[in-house]
């Protein structure tokens, strides 16, 4: 099959509104995509990768303006964003897939009709014809029982099913170019694997050109033919997939790649003889959902989970969304009642302890949450946020403040931060503040609930390093909940794999990765994108070392 140049982007620049932290959202971006090829735009948040996609489709938000550059589609410049011609191209010649599939569908319209709308607005097929065509499309994107899906509303479908509906919509008129903006970021790893496979298959069967926007190098490894790395609106490196993974030329590309944790856990070096700080004995939590006045339906959110955590050890809980990992965490914190089983903090049982009995014990377990933006009180200065806990637990105000300053130093923040408010910090810095706040009470156990999931990969690597360092220094145990096997591999001594409330597997991380016992663990490992690439082995060159030392 001859390769046609489908899209050519020529020194495209988009201006940010005046007063932003930089002048241009993207600056002089160049690339081309040929039919049957996938180009991955990779970068961290704020790199301008999504803006590039929106600029091509003429869908820039009102505050952004294309400043210069050309976008050629099949050799011709694309018409004006507001023109009728462009409206006709959208959805028929160029289609888009979105990040949050459930939100990309109108919640009060049946999904079948939403796909049909493409035919309607582009004047294709009669009503009955388009219905048959939609059912065919559903079938071809691997949706079971198309007739039932056709009649469903988005909330009745899973995230993966919604994304397949969105993909079906995008494919309806066999577009030449498909723009996929983080299409699997909101999905579980096994669902993600299915969607990536589908996109790869479509590239082959439809011979479409695909612009794939992502932050995840694992995903890049699975789908890319070519890669363009972006940073702060500028393209830093472009090349074929192999070139980028094997011989990255740019320092930033190398740093990014090396920040991706490997799927190879280090051998367990933890001292196994230290004292027990937390123990759960067949903990169960049953949720019941009221159907009506006299009937209710119950299911086990957590079922028979047992584990033990020693001083200085890190135990990971991994699983997909809805597997019960967060509920388990809430049970341990006693934010949620335990329906059966027992929980011990040290040698003290806290399963049914009253709030009054728990109060002095609370400081032994501290939490770091997922979203550093919402987990700090925006109207509280950093110093007070960190010192508040110790003061409540009876520490002198002056001592608490001194300790807070020392902690800021331990998490790598300047003492001058103490007097500032959360909004003055970046996401990574805020997560450092949250960690300092948790450590202020000198906890025995740190509970981290997806604590690095919202962070960019380079920041994520820094926070993971910080956690390891602090653990060595202070000796607390970590209970680390995550959906990300790479993060789990790099941090945890032992792992629990959960599924549908049950503990599927529990053991040393290295063993679990090397010889997984359950089919589910195997499928999770298998579904992890880019599992075969060892990112830490990507060579640094001399200039990188020099930079690293100077830092």
């Amino acid at each position, binding site marked *: 099959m001859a390769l046609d140049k489908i899209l050519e982007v020529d020194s495209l620049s988009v201006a940010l509104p005046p007063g932003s932290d930089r002048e241009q959202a993207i600056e002089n971006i160049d690339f081309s995509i040929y039919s049957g090829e996938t180009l991955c735009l990779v970068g961290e948040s704020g790199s301008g990768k999504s803006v590039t996609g929106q600029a091509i489709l003429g869908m820039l938000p009102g505050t952004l303006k294309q400043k210069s550059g050309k976008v050629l589609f099949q050799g011709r410049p694309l018409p004006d964003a507001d023109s009728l011609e462009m409206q006709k191209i959208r959805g028929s010649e160029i289609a888009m897939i*979105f990040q949050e599939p459930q939100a990309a569908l109108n919640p009060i319209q049946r999904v079948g009709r939403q796909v049909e709308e493409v035919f309607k607005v582009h004047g294709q097929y009669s009503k009955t014809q388009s219905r048959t065509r939609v059912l065919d499309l559903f079938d071809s994107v691997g949706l079971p029982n198309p007739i039932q899906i056709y009649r469903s509303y988005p909330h009745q479908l899973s995230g993966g099913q919604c994304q397949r509906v969105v993909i079906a919509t995008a494919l309806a008129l066999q577009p030449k170019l498909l723009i996929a903006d983080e299409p699997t970021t909101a999905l579980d790893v096994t669902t993600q694997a299915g969607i990536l496979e589908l996109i790869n298959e479509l590239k082959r069967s439809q011979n479409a050109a695909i612009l794939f926007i992502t932050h995840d190098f694992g995903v890049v490894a699975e789908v890319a033919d070519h890669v363009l790395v972006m940073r702060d609106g500028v393209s830093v490196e472009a090349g074929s997939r192999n070139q980028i993974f094997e011989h990255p030329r740019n320092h930033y590309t190398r740093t990014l790649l090396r920040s991706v944790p490997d799927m190879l856990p280090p051998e367990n070096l933890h001292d196994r003889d230290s004292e027990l700080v937390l123990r759960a004995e067949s903990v169960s939590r049953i949720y019941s959902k009221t159907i009506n006045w006299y009937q209710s339906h119950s299911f086990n959110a957590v079922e028979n989970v047992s584990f033990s955590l020693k001083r200085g050890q890190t135990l990971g809980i991994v699983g997909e969304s809805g597997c019960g990992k967060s509920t388990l965490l809430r049970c341990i914190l006693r934010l949620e009642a335990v329906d059966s089983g027992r929980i011990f903090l040290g040698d003290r049982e806290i399963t049914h302890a009253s709030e009054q009995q728990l109060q002095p014990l609370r400081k032994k377990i501290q939490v770091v949450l997922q979203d550093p933006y919402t987990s700090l009180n925006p109207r509280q200065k950093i110093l007070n946020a960190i010192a508040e806990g110790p003061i409540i637990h009876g520490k002198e105000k002056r001592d608490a403040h001194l300790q807070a300053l020392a902690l800021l130093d331990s998490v790598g923040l300047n003492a001058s931060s103490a007097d500032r408010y959360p909004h003055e910090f970046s996401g990574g810095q805020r997560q450092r503040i949250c960690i300092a706040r948790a450590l202020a009470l000198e906890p025995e156990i740190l509970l981290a609930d997806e604590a690095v999931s919202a962070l960019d990969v380079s920041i994520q690597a820094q926070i993971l390093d910080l956690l390891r360092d602090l653990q060595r220094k202070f000796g607390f145990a970590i209970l680390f909940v995550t959906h990300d096997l790479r993060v789990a591999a790099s941090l945890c001594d032992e792992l629990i794999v959960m599924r549908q409330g049950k503990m599927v597997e529990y053991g040393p991380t290295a063993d679990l990765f090397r010889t997984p016992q359950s089919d589910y663990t195997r499928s999770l490992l298998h579904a992890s994108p880019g599992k075969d690439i060892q990112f830490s082995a990507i060579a640094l060159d001399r200039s990188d070392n020099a930079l690293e030392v100077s830092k």
Partner: protein
Amino acid sequence: MNAQFLLGKIIRSVITLWITVSLAFVLLRLAGDPAEALIPPDAGPEVVEYYRVKWGFDKPIHVQYFKYFGALVRGDFGFSLHTGKPVHDIVFQKVPNTLLLGGTAFLIALFVGIPLGVLAALKRNSLIDRVVMSFSVFAFAMPNFFFGLLLILSAAMIFHTFVGAGELTFWSLILPACTLGLANVGSLARFTRSTVLETLNKPFMAAALAKGVGMSRRIVHHALPNAAIPIVTLLGLSLGGLIAGSVVTETVFGWPGVGSLLIRAVQTRDLGVVQFIVLMVASTMTAVNLMVDLLYLVIDPRIRVK
């Protein structure tokens, strides 16, 4: 399942009604002796006592309460202490007027407020948006009685029309209806603007754009039905309010409706009439509420029980 949902809602409505009516009953009896208020002050104490016994005000309050409720259940709403006529005859006579006024005001709010709000949302930050928003602040900042007087004066000066009390002409309807509708236009426009804006920023609106759906279809088929859900709530509240809350406007314009009747009845402690009006207003409010709940089911599939 939906029938069960409906039944639950109806039972709750009946309980709400019962509580409202009981509260009104107790409060009105705490407000003073109706016999004394009704009988001219120069009548002797034995006359007052005679009427007190005749109307049953000498009995303990729970006895009066059960008697009143027993009558209600049989469909006997009581009689006016003033005229001796059955209260429902007196009140229902005025209901068409109030409905006419409230209905017109509601239509004004609906057909002016919502389009203004949508327009402001679509032209966000433009001159149109600012004008609409300033108007809406003006509209609900302006007290009813004052705006009513302004309208009467302007009508007299510009159109040389005098709105006389008690007559039903085009002007005598449209002026109070505008007065009553105005505050609702303001809040409705503002609320519509914010919900439409919120909907316009939803990912599914971008998805519709990417599908090649044109502007007007995006708004009519995707934005408005989604924005309608919170708007319906507000409409329900204001519809109930228009029927109950026309007291001030009706008084200013001398409109012969339930509002004016209520004022007179309260002043003269005509308990039967007041109680019946409270019952009626409470019933309308609950009925409108029920309607809004049912409308949600129609608009939003996420609320429907499987």
